[in-house]
């Protein structure tokens, strides 16, 4: 069974917000199929209940908020695309 056919790659690319050319689709489809085939060795690994998200125990440590200005707002306005005192961006709706 082929996991990464062109339709699957297109779907994953759409979710990942990538626009791929036809050539890229073909190339990634073959590459990812080969990689996923190799990754299937994980099916042979025993399961356990001990999965953590970090390789060492990490405590939640919070620091005090210390307000600071890393960059002057005038400099920021000069560097970014602005309209009056607003930073411009693409449409969200």
């Amino acid at each position, binding site marked *: 069974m082929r996991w*990464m056919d062109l339709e*699957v*790659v297109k779907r*994953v*690319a759409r*979710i*990942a*917000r*990538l*626009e*791929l050319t036809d050539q*890229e689709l073909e*190339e*990634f489809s073959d*590459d*990812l199929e*080969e*990689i*996923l085939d*190799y*990754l299937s*060795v*994980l*099916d*042979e*690994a*025993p*399961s*356990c209940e*001990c*999965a*953590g*998200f*970090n*390789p*060492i*125990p*990490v*405590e*939640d*440590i919070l*620091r005090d908020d210390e307000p600071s200005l*890393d*960059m002057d707002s005038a400099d920021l306005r000069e560097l*970014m*695309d602005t309209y009056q005192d607003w930073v*411009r*961006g*693409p*449409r*969200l709706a």
Partner: protein
Amino acid sequence: MTGASVVEKLERINGRYQVFSEIVEKEVEVAEGGFQFSAKDNICTIEMQTRAGSRILDGYRPPFDATAVRKLKEVGGILVAKDNMDEFGFGTFSTNCAFGLPKNPYDIERCCGGSSGGSAAAACLLEGHLSLGESTGGSIACPAAFCGVYGLTPTYGRVSRYGLVDYANSLDKIGLISRSAKQVAEQLPTISGRDSMDPTSCSQPELVVDGAEPGRIAIPQKALEGLDPAIEESFLRTVDQMTSLGMEVTEVDMSSLRFSLPAYYILATSESSTNLARYSGMLFGTVNHDFNEHFNDFFSKTRSRDLGNEAKRRILLGTFSRMVGFRDRYYMKALQVRSMVTEEYRRVFTEHDIVMTPTMPFVAPRFSDIESMSPLDMYKADFLTVPPNLCGLPHVSMPSDYIDGMPIGVQLVAPHWEERCLLESMILWEGHFQPRWPEVMS
């Protein structure tokens, strides 16, 4: 040495080897007792761009120094350059670089290894130079081996990641590369320590640099499978040398290591596929001014235009691994494997101080050979460096031999927070090993 001569020398070297993505513009002077250093281009610096080897970050100049950079400056380090690297660390050979392809100091037809290729090559080319590298799956050890230098990757969380451009948060570690084991040992305490800007650094015990007597070395039984025969022969000679230095070397069964590489590539790509979403074309680096489009199209166009092929491949793999229906099979299973492999190391470390393997299965390949390798072939080349990286274990690559004039390395892995075992071993080895530095055009 005057500042002008430092910059001129760096520029001349860079003209031939392309190890730096950027060199300081103004003159620098290294004071008595100070040293010059460069930083991998995914480590933030005020005075130079930080582009992580990617076009999408072109023009990004951070308003702050990474903690590791700041600390080196505080003890007399002079930052002279940023080092070329694989885009966001995505590569084994430093051939996915947007701002120059670093060449191996021993043979410019060959790669430096990756992804800290520029950092390792700079350390090899310049006596007394220290490089800040970063490792996710072997990006310090691999280029250190290919360039014949010492490359130390500390325990995950030992060095603050504040100011590091994320590849995979649960795997990224800043470390040191140098010709000199002594220099690495001297500067590890400088960059280590708790930093409130990176909570993962705040759980660490104090770094102790002496008092270790690493005498018991374990070699995983299957570590020699898949090696170039010349690497295997050389490694057995290194084992004999270690024995003559008083080390007790025994073989151990570590059968779970075979699951490390697939688990690593799932975790690393899963994390990176979300991390790269911050490069939207508005905040960092390349700015797309076409604001008439909807954000989703704007975002897609920026990524599709400015990310390289390997970055796209890893985003696709990481996105797929986290999708509904596949998450348990890939991502959750990879987390379980990481715990299982970590437990296997822990078991071995109850009776041994160090786990030793070759660093890489072959010498630095030629660029022409790399072109014919598939992405999976390249991933598989990391099978020796990935296990300690997956588990956040401290490790070092030390130069161990030369094959047809090309350097190779041996990798030592120590328990969590036991960097002192590595430092003692490096210093001992440095007193025994005779390096052959390349002839450098200067």
